[in-house]
């Protein structure tokens, strides 16, 4: 018996900027020793040694996050602050030139999901952008962070200054996340989805963001490295909280219909093909002043050749990344980019790209699994309803 499809280091590009390196050349987050104490199974991911699962296992951790609260170490992700060169100006219009999202319109402490695009409309990375005054706080994917930060610094030279922040990042996700977090950081309870704030914790600056990548209500907490283990241990003392590894992080985000960079989106996919145009406001679609705007505009008016869709296998066999998708006449029409088993649904689910003619929900398709065609149909996403706290009363 051997594993054939584990590929947690599939997007392993950068070595990261963390200060600690293991003997194997992988970086470690500040929580590394805590992961070992919690009996985590560690795997290489994006240049880091990261926990793929703990005692509960992927299924148990996934369900725990949906029912209570899960704690994730996401310190491998890149954090940076962008300042305007001219301290009296706003950095938002400067940064907006690199992404199709609405950054100028971002209110104080508001968070936006957007993408860094290239001249062909391909996606260099997807990221979260938060406005603090005339500066922006950026959180980018671990595997892309070195390239992203170099790209941003180079592209905005003379107009903005990027300060890469070597801090830890924890995510606390699930229906009990607010109740747990507000005991230690009361300000968390005042935030609505996609809002952030600064808070003081034992004399240090922490950033609380009400967002995440599981489809649940929850928070990300950016804090100094030397506080991270203590703070994580404090959260874990609450019975509602369990540590969650990358395995469940992946199955949770797949159920939520969210893209994993390097798998569902990359430089070969545009925001139109990836069905991410909800993150591009009308103003940007009209001004067309971001990298690759001509391609996006052309795809919007002429329809793209292919689209990212949800795929529901009708049998029980999971369809993994790379699985070929055929129409009912056995013509190849696309490929699965993320696929697995959905613990919340106890059924296989997948997402992938199909030709636009086959992208309508309900369309019957075949998945070629180990040489055999298996019935499936196109479906809307998310697979599991988002539980974001949209408004705060």
């Amino acid at each position, binding site marked *: *018996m*051997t*594993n*054939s*499809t*584990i590929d947690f280091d599939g997007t392993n590009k950068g070595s990261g900027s963390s200060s600690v390196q293991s003997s194997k050349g992988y970086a470690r987050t500040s929580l590394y020793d805590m992961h070992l104490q919690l009996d985590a199974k560690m795997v290489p991911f994006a240049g880091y040694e990261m926990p*793929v*699962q703990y005692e509960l*296992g*992927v*299924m*148990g951790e*996934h369900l725990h996050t949906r029912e209570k609260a899960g704690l994730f170490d996401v310190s491998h992700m890149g954090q940076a602050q962008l300042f305007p060169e001219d301290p009296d100006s706003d950095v938002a219009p400067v940064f907006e030139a690199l992404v199709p999202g609405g950054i100028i319109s971002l209110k104080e402490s508001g968070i936006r999901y957007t993408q860094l695009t290239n001249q062909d409309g391909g996606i260099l990375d997807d990221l979260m952008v938060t406005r603090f005054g005339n500066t922006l706080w950026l959180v980018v994917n671990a595997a892309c962070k070195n390239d992203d930060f170099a790209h941003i610094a180079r592209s905005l030279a003379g107009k903005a200054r990027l300060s890469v922040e070597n801090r830890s990042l924890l995510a606390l996700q699930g229906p009990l996340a607010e109740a747990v977090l507000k005991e230690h950081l009361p300000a968390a309870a005042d935030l609505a989805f996609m809002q952030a704030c600064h808070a003081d914790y034992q004399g240090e600056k922490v950033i609380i963001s009400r967002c995440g990548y599981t489809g649940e209500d929850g928070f990300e907490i950016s804090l100094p490295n030397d506080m991270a283990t203590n703070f994580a241990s404090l959260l874990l003392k609450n019975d509602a909280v369990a540590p969650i590894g990358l*395995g*469940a992080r*992946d*199955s949770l985000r797949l159920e939520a219909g969210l893209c994993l960079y390097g798998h569902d989106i990359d430089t070969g996919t545009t925001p139109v093909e990836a069905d991410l145009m909800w993150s591009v406001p009308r103003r940007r679609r009209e001004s067309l002043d971001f990298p690759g705007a001509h391609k996006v505009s052309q795809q919007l008016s002429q329809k793209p050749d292919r689209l990212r869709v949800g795929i529901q296998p009708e049998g*029980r*066999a*999971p369809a*993994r990344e790379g699985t070929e998708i055929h129409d009912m006449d056995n013509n190849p029409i696309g490929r699965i980019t993320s696929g*697995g*088993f959905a*613990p919340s649904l106890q059924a*296989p689910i997948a997402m992938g790209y199909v030709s636009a003619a086959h992208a309508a929900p309900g369309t019957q398709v075949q998945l070629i699994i*180990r040489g055999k065609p298996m019935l499936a149909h196109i479906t809307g996403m998310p697979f599991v309803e988002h539980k974001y706290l949209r408004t705060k009363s």
Partner: protein
Amino acid sequence: MSKKFTKDHEWISLEGDLARIGITDYAQEQLGDVVFVELPEAGRQVEQGNDAAVVESVKAASEVYAPVSGEIVEPNVKLEDEPALVNQDPAEGGWFFTMKVSNPDELNDLMDEAAYADYVKELG
């Protein structure tokens, strides 16, 4: 007879010329929660080391290899409805298939229980 083991973590137990095959406790532990099993059909001929079945956890798919050559007699269809049996009872109720062994000498290539225990210990 007692069980024999492969380096790929299958076990085989011979009863006359019929052998029962499953995966070891170590293997199920490594896999995590099993959510899907694909079994070979009765009558299929397999060579030693060939893919014979597939076992999938939430995250990954793995092959189960035929520990010896022969003909598949009976797949454990119970696993199709209850794949978690592989985790709960890998050594007994979670067996994958039985097969008619064509060349019993191939069993000599495999480890006995003590050798397998040492092998797993070395894997850490």
